[in-house]
């Protein structure tokens, strides 16, 4: 396949979000991979598959095992147990140069002594393409990232964002089965990071590239991914679409890692129809709709409410959940205000409100309300 065009690939049949890939279109399959460094288990029996054209993000704090998992996929570390399948071929112990994988490194790893052209030509030269093909394909990907005029420059003569795009082009030029990116935007400043996110997203959807992405930045993960694999202590904490992870976190860890959360513990008092009443520490009674989750009266339970689901409601409002408290402090963040409140019995609550011209002073008594749908019941701590 000398030509870059891959029509079947360009139109990803599976819409993002529902990409539970069928076995035919699985590009990467990780089966029960474990890796230990001495006494430390970096990843523990992790299984994960990435579908054709999917954008899957490994998200987690440092030390959660996401980089180890990534290096096992690329072949830079050999797992102790488990298997790695790439494009239907077993590759667990194959050397990196025999895997059909592209990697964008955190610092881009552009070869400093080679021109932009030679950098991008490198993987093609390794594949013994002829000079004409190399010229054609390199200039094609250079056009895709809109940097055709930089072909003769050295990497250090480019800006950070340009280097990033060249690193991407260098991976795209040989059409690997999957492109792996290790915190590729970590070195860029906020504004550039935002515009590069748009760029990566564009290349992904336009060319149907399969991407395994690593980051510790939850906003980046939410913005880019089809699915997010949240990792913690070497294991998968929760795997799902950004929407699922944000609105239906399953654990305290997931709720805390992505977005702000109010977390309460309590005991289920009664369930009437599809609404349950929960009495929390600090003497609140909250109402929730557990949906498919089974809860019984007397269960000890943890729950979370996103601060942005809370509103200031007038006295006598009909919202399912209401508490009165007073404002302790206000963090003004431009488009919204983070209001930190406390109930009379000392329970702390955060509400993120759309910024309004009216100022909230500390000490002001407020009534906060939210609907039963916004209460998410969590599973107990994983052991």
């Amino acid at each position, binding site marked *: 396949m000398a030509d870059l065009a891959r029509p079947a690939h360009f139109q990803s049949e599976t819409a993002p979000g529902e990409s539970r890939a069928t076995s035919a279109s699985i590009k990467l399959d990780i089966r029960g991979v474990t890796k230990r460094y001495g006494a430390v288990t970096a990843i523990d029996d992790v299984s994960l598959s990435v579908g054709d054209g999917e954008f899957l993000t490994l998200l987690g704090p440092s030390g959660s095992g996401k980089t180890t998992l990534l290096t096992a996929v*690329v*072949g*830079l570390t*050999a797992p102790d147990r488990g*298997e790695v399948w790439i494009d239907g*071929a*077993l*590759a*667990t*112990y*194959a*050397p*990196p*140069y*025999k*895997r059909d*994988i*592209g*990697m964008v*490194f*955190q*610092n881009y*790893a552009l*070869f*400093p*002594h*080679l021109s932009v052209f*030679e950098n991008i030509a*490198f*993987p093609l*030269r*390794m*594949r013994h393409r002829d000079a004409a093909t190399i010229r054609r394909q390199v200039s094609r990907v250079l056009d895709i990232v809109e940097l055709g005029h930089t072909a003769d420059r*050295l990497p*250090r003569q480019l800006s950070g964002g340009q280097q990033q795009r060249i690193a991407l082009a*260098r991976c795209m030029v*040989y059409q690997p089965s999957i492109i792996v990116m290790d915190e590729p935007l970590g070195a860029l400043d906020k504004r550039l990071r935002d515009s590069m996110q748009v760029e990566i997203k564009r290349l992904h959807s336009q060319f149907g590239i399969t991407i395994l992405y690593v980051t510790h930045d939850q906003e980046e993960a939410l913005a880019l991914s089809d699915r997010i694999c949240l990792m913690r202590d070497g294991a998968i904490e929760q795997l799902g679409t950004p929407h699922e992870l944000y609105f239906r976190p399953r654990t305290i860890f997931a709720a805390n890692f992505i977005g702000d959360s109010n977390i309460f513990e309590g005991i289920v008092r009664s369930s009437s129809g599809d609404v349950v009443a929960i009495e929390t520490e600090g003497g609140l009674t909250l109402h929730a709709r557990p949906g498919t989750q089974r809860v019984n009266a007397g269960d000890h339970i943890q729950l979370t409410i996103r601060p942005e689901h809370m509103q200031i409601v007038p006295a006598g409002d009909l919202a399912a959940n209401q508490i009165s408290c007073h404002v302790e402090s206000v963090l003004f963040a431009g488009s919204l205000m983070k209001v930190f409140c406390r109930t009379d019995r000392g329970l702390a609550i955060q509400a993120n409100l759309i910024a309004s011209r009216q100022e909230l002073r500390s000490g002001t008594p407020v009534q906060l309300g939210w609907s039963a749908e916004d209460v998410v019941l969590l599973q107990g701590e994983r052991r």
Partner: protein
Amino acid sequence: MSFGAVDAKADAMQPAAAHSPQPAPSKRLVWAMPLIPALLFLTIFFIYPVADLLLLSFTNKSGAFDLEQYRAVYSSKVYIDVLLITLKIALMIVAFCLILGYPVAYLLANAAPKTRARLVIWVLMPFWTSFLVRAFAWMILLGNNGPITKAVNIFGPEPPIKLIYNLTGVMIGTVQALLPLAILVMMAAMQNIDANLTRAASTMGARGGQAFWRIYFPLSFPGVAAAGLLTFITAMGFFITPALLGGPRETMIAQIILVQVQELLNWRFAGALSLLLLALSFVVFLLYDRATGLSSQAQSTQPGRVQRPPGRLAATWSASLLAILGWLGSASDAAMKALEAVFPRRNDRPGRRGPGLLQIAVGMVLVFLVAPALIVVPVSFTSGSFIAFPPVGFSLRWYETYLGSPVWVAATLVSFLVALVTGLLATILGGAAAFVFIRHEFFGKRMLVALFIAPLVIPRIIIAVAMFYLFAKLGLIGSLWGLIIGHTVLALPFVVVTVMSVLKSYDERYDHAALTLGATPLRTLRHVTLPLIKPAIIAAFLFSFVTSFDELTVALFISAGTVTTLPKMMWSDLILQMNPTLAAVSAVILIIATVIVLAAEAIKRRASYE
């Protein structure tokens, strides 16, 4: 928050700004004071004598300008030949050092930090142990009855292969002597190569050979060039090893200079030869610099120093060079593939782990570096009357001879005393200078730093002859102070480089914190800065101590009568006859140097782990 609060805060900032540690305009040059003593010291005892000696070569007996010395060099074929031989031997040494040193530097640079720390000791040890002791060890091993010579001649070839007093002996001895320098310089450069680059190459389909030749090798080239340059300049001025292991046909220019001064007192001619040696080194340096643009890197000989990213040369790898590199890569990969055909790799099973060819080769080089010197220890315990390896019996008789001889004991005490004072003096002078270099930017700083490093780069024989000339006029020959001053000049580069490298990574905010907390600059220095960099200061002292303790070249000229150092005594004995007392002395020098270097390294390392 009201505006009033903001104003109050702004008011509170005002007095703090007025107290900030800006030097008052009236004493603007106070910051340069710590540099002055060291600068004066180097001007009087290094720049002036060297310049004086070189200028002397342009005069005749009456002091008028005259080129007669250079006419003498030019008219005699002998000296031109010696220059050519020197050049040839130096280039051969460079080639061997780079080829043998590259794999070692590569392995060390790419090892895990802990492994590297453990292995680098095996390079640092020979780097710091004296040329003299090592040459002595080679004389035992390569001598006509030495074990290596016997082993080589086991099948009795005719005529028997000789390994000493010829080019072979000089090569073995000098390459072993200069290899550590080459390794340390290359390693420092290689440590700066981003490990992700070869990884990136391999994810893009490059096998080991292509990744090495197309990516790693070009990036390591500036380090190789710097190592080659330093090795070359040192080799050009070498005389200890060639004098002891070479024959008349391997006479190098430094040996001629030695003879001119020591035996003929022909200062003008020695000056002329020194200038030629310097000029030749300088020309080579310029050629290198033109080709590689690495003048900034050549200054750094300290292991572990951070160096700049690859220079001009790395930017100009042309298409044809790239093609050659690609061809080398394919050739290496073809060889590896052939090997893989015999031992196939499988994707469902981890590859075998074990020492590869590289590890074995590096192990052999390290043994070559370290092992020969160690044989002086067993030899020194012989009970026989002659030097023999393996030694005969076991006795302490040669240590008794050593310690029972007032001359040897006096020399030992002189060496200790000189090393101690040199260590203190060099640490104080160089440490203060390093502070100024790191803390202040000023015009001509680079040149001044280069001046402090220069005693390391200029052939030592030239410095020694120049000092001899000056000290003879000052009456310092045969005095402790003469030796101390001479050794301090040589030790200063090590102090400046060691302290500078630590200060560079020192977070000045500690000082700022102390100053804002009310400490005066002097008390900040005493209670905050100095305690924090104490390990570097101690290491600098110990390196100076070792530099002086087994220094020979300067001691050769400035020692006299009862004020004679241990290496000078050894040298005098060694060129007359070998005897087991020398082995005992060597063992003592070796052990003292080893203990001190290990201590210095341990202190330095502990500091950097904080």
